[in-house]
């Protein structure tokens, strides 16, 4: 099956060239479509020092359909929904923008980038986005608090 071949390939590539701050891998060997992700909060962001776990779900049509990314660790971020799903809103993950040539690792790098710099335009949590825009200090404070509270 094409999807499995492609995913194994990406997995092998990732294992050969690991990226700092990102650890990723399938939940189990017989289900390559569910990945556990671990991101360390990037330095310089209010999330620094935190360890965020995420679920990556690949559709059976992968790579034609984009994967979905969900934070299992609670995080105070304009682009992550503040509910039990914790779904992350990444521009490249939208089906109209998704290109099969995008790799999982690129998605994860984008996610890390988003932690460093939230995208206010694409926010799912508009109140957090407003706070980020208007009073960045209080945003940073809350984000840091949450990181300390949930991501340690």
């Amino acid at each position, binding site marked *: 099956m*094409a999807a499995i*071949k*492609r995913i194994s*390939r*990406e997995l092998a*590539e990732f294992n050969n060239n690991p990226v700092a701050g990102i650890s990723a891998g399938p939940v189990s060997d017989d289900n390559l479509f569910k990945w556990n992700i671990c991101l360390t909060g990037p330095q310089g962001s209010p999330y620094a020092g935190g360890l965020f776990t995420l679920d990556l779900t690949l*559709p*059976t*049509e992968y*790579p*034609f*359909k984009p994967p979905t990314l969900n934070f299992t660790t609670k995080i105070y971020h304009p682009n992550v929904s503040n509910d039990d799903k914790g779904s992350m809103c990444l521009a490249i993950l939208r*089906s*109209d923008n998704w*290109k*099969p*040539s995008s*790799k999982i690792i690129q998605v994860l790098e984008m996610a890390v980038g988003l932690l460093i710099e939230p995208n206010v335009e694409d926010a799912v949590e508009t109140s957090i986005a407003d706070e980020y825009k208007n009073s960045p200090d209080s945003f940073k404070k809350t984000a840091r608090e949450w990181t300390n509270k949930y991501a340690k």
Partner: protein
Amino acid sequence: MSAATNFNFSVIVIPSAARSVAANLDFPTLNQSLSFALEVSSPSDFQTLYSQDSKGGNTFKGLLYVPDLDPTDPCDNHDLVPRNITRKANLPMDDLKLVAYAPLISQHCSRQYMYSAENDNVAAFIFYGVPPIYSNYTDPLQGEEYPFEYPVYYLDGAIGQPLMNKLSEYSANMSEVYNGFNLTEAGYDIRDYARIYAVISTRNTNPMPGLWLFLLVVVAVLLFIIGASSLLMHLFQFHYRRSLRRRIANGEVDLEGLGVGRITVPREFLAKFPLYVYIAENGGQATPPRQKAQDTTTPALPTSKEGGKKKERVRVPSAVVVKEGVSIIIPATATSERKSKGKERVKDKQRSPTTVDTPTSPEMAEVSTSKGLTLSSPTAPSTKPRSSPKTQSPSTSTPQLTGSQTPTTTTSLPHPRGYHQTSCPICLDDFIHQETTVRELPCLHIFHPECIDPYLESQSSLCVLCKQSCLPKGYVPIRLTNAIVRRERLLRSVRERSREVAAATAANNGDAEGGILWRWRLRRLRRQEQDLMGRQALVRAGRGYGERARGGGFGLEPQYREHRVVEDVVRPRWRETMDRIFPGFR
């Protein structure tokens, strides 16, 4: 009470010999051309004055006669009653059913007539109105409780008096009745009786016929209006569909942009996308690339590949041979017939590998064979000098010989450019220079055919990289439903409106304040836009797994799936029914 609906008077012939056939009066009618018949069915010509019959639907029949009165009674000798009128004595049998007939002269007279009729075997009584100079009296039942069992009817004088006169003509025997001579000539027995026979049909009268009738009319009118408007809307919708189809065919409408759901690339189009041997962007400089059969479908791929290799091996020492069938930049109109031809030629090729070597010329860049399969070009420079005899140069130097159908010299048409893409975006495997077969889409992106073909066939018509449609412009791949028409119209109107708004804003010097109307329009426009976007998103979502499960997988007809996706956007059943009756109604 049952009302009369119809009076029928005719002349029947009662044989003189018949003495006992009394009851049913089943006698032949007299030849109509020689006698008379009268039918009164216009409701304005009669009234039902009295009837005990409550069911209706009965008919009262009998021989018409004028009841006898006391000879001294002035009513009896009235001017209106002719002397030789049919009386009871003029009837052949005593026990026949009778229908009494008399003018309405006065209360007294009608009483007398009715009492007299009571003693006879009367089925019904018919009064007729008389001219006003005789009487204005119209109601024989006036004043008293009606004691009789037979129904009473009233006939208009304009019909009644002539009938009275007719009645007087049929009172004697056959030779003396009206037209008697002709009748006997015609073979009627002179001893037979010709008499007027009356049949009164009745029906039950509803107490509120008017109301029902009114309701019926209202319902009928409503139905008519519904039917007419439905027809009109269907016509309009038909017109819209046709115009949309035309605009799609003209390439004015981007179907993918409508978000009407899954549009796929049919196999016959897919087969027309060229297959090349991959040449790296800078790897092909030393050795001109070779091109492969293009009209090969995926399953046929291995053979053609082999063929290509064989070709090459044999070709090197070979001389130049002319091969038929070159066509240049063929519009995508190839049929399956051509496809099969192409395959045949591949085999042909394998049997006798004869190819033509020509130098690669830059202007060949845009030339790609779609038919010819003799497409190898020199791989080693050493072959070059041996190739291209003088005879061939003219044809090669004129690559613009568009689609020459006549067999001409073959030009080997190498793929002009290498590719930037180094790996298949789908499986991420690298393409191998001069080895991997790649499928080139119209947007010039390349993929492994085994990677991209299933996707285009079953999921989308867009290139996965640039999202450009792979379908030829103007091709209408789906059944155009009313929903699609509506969506297109809405999209267009929103687009137009926003242009309008933009223009107006510009005219207003960007002053978005404006009047109340202005603000309202702006709001409405935004709402429409949101509505549209929302629905598109829904449709897009429907293209995912959910839709797949619902639609029953990929085995379904693409048209059917399209239809479902669009129509399915959460609409209750009644709305669908409404839509069927009034298409395009919102």
